[in-house]
């Protein structure tokens, strides 16, 4: 593993994770770190285990070995709803918005938390409608009636309702038009400015290089290489090696 | 699904068989009948295991096959003079088979829960028909009849006594067990198990899954009907209570308690349940189902492999 400055007190640490789906050994000892407010990318071909890594962090899949730490404490094996409350947001591949709930109700699944007064809730909603005006227009429409791009916006907005410290973004630009890809990039930048950390899984290399500060490269269930985005921009060959692009 | 080496298996089999043959000679009357009843319910549970354990279809309809076997035998014994054992068997098996075809046709196209509910509904349909068609079935009161003689017309005829009935039942159940065992170990049986493991894949490989399921239901139904005939012979009456779906539920309990997919397990389960019932009845009278039900529910949660599975794991340690 070549260089890339890792933060001193990481927000999320994944250490030596082995995960199985039934009998398939998907993750063979994955380790990575995300610092507070950092935008970190996870690149790799289809099937190397990028999504599984995110799911393991989010507690959707239980690792057979290894540890996940958040803000210093171990979170391996905790139920996802606890992690969401602790400040980890999740935007899955294929979005998974609640199709039969309206846009507003989708947002409320994250917004309706104890200890958040109405003023703060309204402020959150206003912010999200500012970022995604299209959602404001469609707020009473059922989630299933939105277009693919709009659903992606909703999925991200919904995660933002949790006021998370880190958002796990799984292939947000898959299947989107170039205009929307740009919008996603702008959202990531805006979130970064607010101090939200992001762990971005992507197959879109240029976007990842632009948006992230550090990037991990995965192959066959392991992290093989780690570098700053700047270093990788300078040396494209490394990426070709792992992405086969 | 027994993995014991053949020698060990046949030795065990022989020992158990010997014990069962000797049983009526040494046990008091009550326990004699008890053992015979265990065998009959065991046969019923075994038949159900074909579906539950080997094909992965939980049937709540076995009371229909059992009951129809019983009533079929009753019909033969009441309508033909002198009452003929073999005719009773024939009528009973045919009745059960016909019902099985009927049920199979409708329910096998459904999966999982829908299959279970449909079989339950069918057993209730037959219950209602039998309960209300008083002219033919005796309605609520059922039918009583006398036991036929064991014999082959023209060759010999011996009246059944408690012992010979027990041995007859034992013979029938043993043969049934061996036949079912052979079937489950045959290619047909393997296909059934593959349906249980992964139905879509079995279908994709090219097997006509529906047909296998129908045959499985029929097989299961016929042996359940056989158990019904034996029960009729043992007790000399047929009643609608046996067609009520709770009986099907009890059969499922035997299967789960003993260990599904083992053929022997359900018999063990039946024995276990009946012993528990006997034991608890002493203390709880007719409320034995409270503790037995609790034990059953606990077993579903903590010992899903049943007694046999539990013992097997213990022995392997």
């Amino acid at each position, binding site marked *: 593993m070549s260089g890339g400055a890792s933060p001193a007190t990481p927000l999320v640490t994944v250490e030596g994770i082995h995960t199985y789906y039934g009998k398939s050994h998907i993750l063979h000892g994955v380790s990575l770190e995300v610092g507070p407010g950092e935008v970190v990318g996870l690149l790799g071909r289809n099937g190397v285990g990028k999504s599984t890594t995110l799911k393991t962090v989010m507690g*959707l899949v239980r690792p057979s070995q290894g540890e996940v730490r958040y803000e210093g404490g171990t979170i391996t094996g905790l139920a996802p709803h606890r992690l*969401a409350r602790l400040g980890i947001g999740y935007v899955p591949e294929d979005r998974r918005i609640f*199709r039969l709930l309206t846009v507003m*109700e989708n947002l409320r*699944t994250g917004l309706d938390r104890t200890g958040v007064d109405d003023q703060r809730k309204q402020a959150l909603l206003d912010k999200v409608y500012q970022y995604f005006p299209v959602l404001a227009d469609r707020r009473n429409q059922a989630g299933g009636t939105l277009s693919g791009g709009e659903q992606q916006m909703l999925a991200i907005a919904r995660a933002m309702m949790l006021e998370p410290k880190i958002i796990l973004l799984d292939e947000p630009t898959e299947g989107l038009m170039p205009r929307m890809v740009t919008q996603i990039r702008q959202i990531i930048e805006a979130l970064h400015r607010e101090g939200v950390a992001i762990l971005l899984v992507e197959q879109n290399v240029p976007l990842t290089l632009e948006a992230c500060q550090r990037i991990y490269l995965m192959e066959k269930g392991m992290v093989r290489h780690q570098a700053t985005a700047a270093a990788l921009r300078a040396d494209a060959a490394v990426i070709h090696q792992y992405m086969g692009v | 699904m027994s993995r014991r080496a053949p020698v060990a298996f046949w030795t065990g089999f022989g020992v158990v068989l010997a014990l069962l043959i000797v049983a009526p000679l040494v046990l008091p009357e009550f326990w004699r009948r008890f053992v015979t009843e265990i065998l009959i319910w065991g046969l019923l549970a075994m038949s159900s295991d074909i579906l539950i354990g080997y094909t992965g279809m939980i049937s709540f309809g076995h009371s229909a096959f059992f009951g129809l076997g019983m009533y079929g035998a009753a019909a033969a014994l009441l309508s033909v003079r002198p009452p003929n054992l073999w005719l009773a068997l024939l009528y009973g098996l045919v009745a059960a088979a016909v019902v099985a075809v009927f049920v199979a046709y409708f329910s096998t196209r*459904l999966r999982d*829960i829908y299959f279970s509910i449909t079989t339950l509904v069918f057993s209730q349909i037959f219950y209602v028909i039998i309960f209300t068609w008083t002219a033919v079935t005796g309605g609520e009161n059922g039918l009583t009849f006398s036991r036929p003689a064991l014999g082959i017309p023209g060759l010999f005829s011996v009246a059944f006594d408690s012992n010979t009935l027990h041995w007859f039942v034992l013979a029938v159940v043993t043969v049934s067990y061996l036949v079912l065992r052979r079937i489950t170990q045959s290619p047909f049986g393997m296909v059934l198990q593959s349906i249980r493991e992964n139905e879509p894949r079995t279908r994709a490989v090219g097997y006509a899954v529906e047909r296998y399921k129908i045959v499985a239901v029929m097989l299961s139904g016929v042996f359940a009907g056989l158990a019904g005939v034996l029960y009729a012979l043992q007790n000399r009456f047929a009643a609608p209570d046996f067609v009520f779906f709770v009986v099907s539920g009890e059969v499922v309990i035997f299967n789960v308690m003993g260990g599904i997919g083992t053929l022997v397990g359900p018999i063990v389960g039946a024995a276990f349940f009946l012993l528990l019932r006997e034991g608890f009845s002493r203390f709880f009278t007719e409320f034995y189902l409270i503790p037995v039900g609790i034990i059953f529910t606990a077993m579903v949660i903590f010992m899903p492999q049943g007694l046999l599975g539990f013992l097997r794991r213990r022995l392997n340690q």
Partner: protein
Amino acid sequence: MPILLDQIVIQTINGIVTGMILALVASGLTLIFGIMDVVNFAHGELFMLGAYVGVTTIVATGSFWLALLVATVVIGLLGAIIQVTTLRPLLGRDPLTTILATFGLSLVLQNYALWQFGPVARKIPEPFTGHFSLFYLDYPWYRLVIAGLSAAIIGALWLFLKFGTYGIWIRATTQDRVMASAMGIPVPWVHTAVFAIGAGMAAASGVLFGPLVGVNHAMGLDWVLKAFIVVVVGGMGNLGGSIAAAIFVSLLEAYASLWVSPAQAVIVSFVVLILTLLFRPTGLFVPTPK
């Protein structure tokens, strides 16, 4: 066929009354299935125990309405306890194990009732008497009131699900349990709450239905079977569908009992189920998936 119009009208009203109570029982069942894939075989016993709690409360206090409330709350709590102790450990296992576990529970509950209350049927007196003339019958007001109350309870449930935070949580969990959890919704507790609500609704039906028939330990059996049929015919997990199916099946049975005995009229619901499974297995009142 000399069936008079007034008989048809009477049976229509009877059918609707029974249908509304059946709808109340079935809604709980379909809600539970929709959200956690549990086929609750013990639902009929919750109905029965609700009726018994009602009987006991009335004997103690004389108030029908208090009995209704107490039964709903007590059995709701029982439902929560059952879910936490028996069903949570089974999460993630083969769904058929929940059928077995709830079946075992139904045996326990049924025999417990037999043990505690004996085999003789009890009666819940009607909260108010009073009839009105319907053709040649004195039709009791009470029956119409039960139908109205059942509808009101179902309506309240619908409102609760539609608005309110917890309603959103329940609907989200029903649609996508995993994502709901990832959004911070405490899914295990939502499951417990829904089971408790279903149990409470079954108990309420038991009390409401009590005055119409005798309360005895076996009353759950018929209802559980009918409720299952209704849930399947209406589309499993489909609340509106099960209500429509409940009324539909009850009406058909009511009309059928003009010709055959009530014991045989039951076959009607079986036939409806079988036809539904053959031709529209996702449910009669569910639009066929495209």
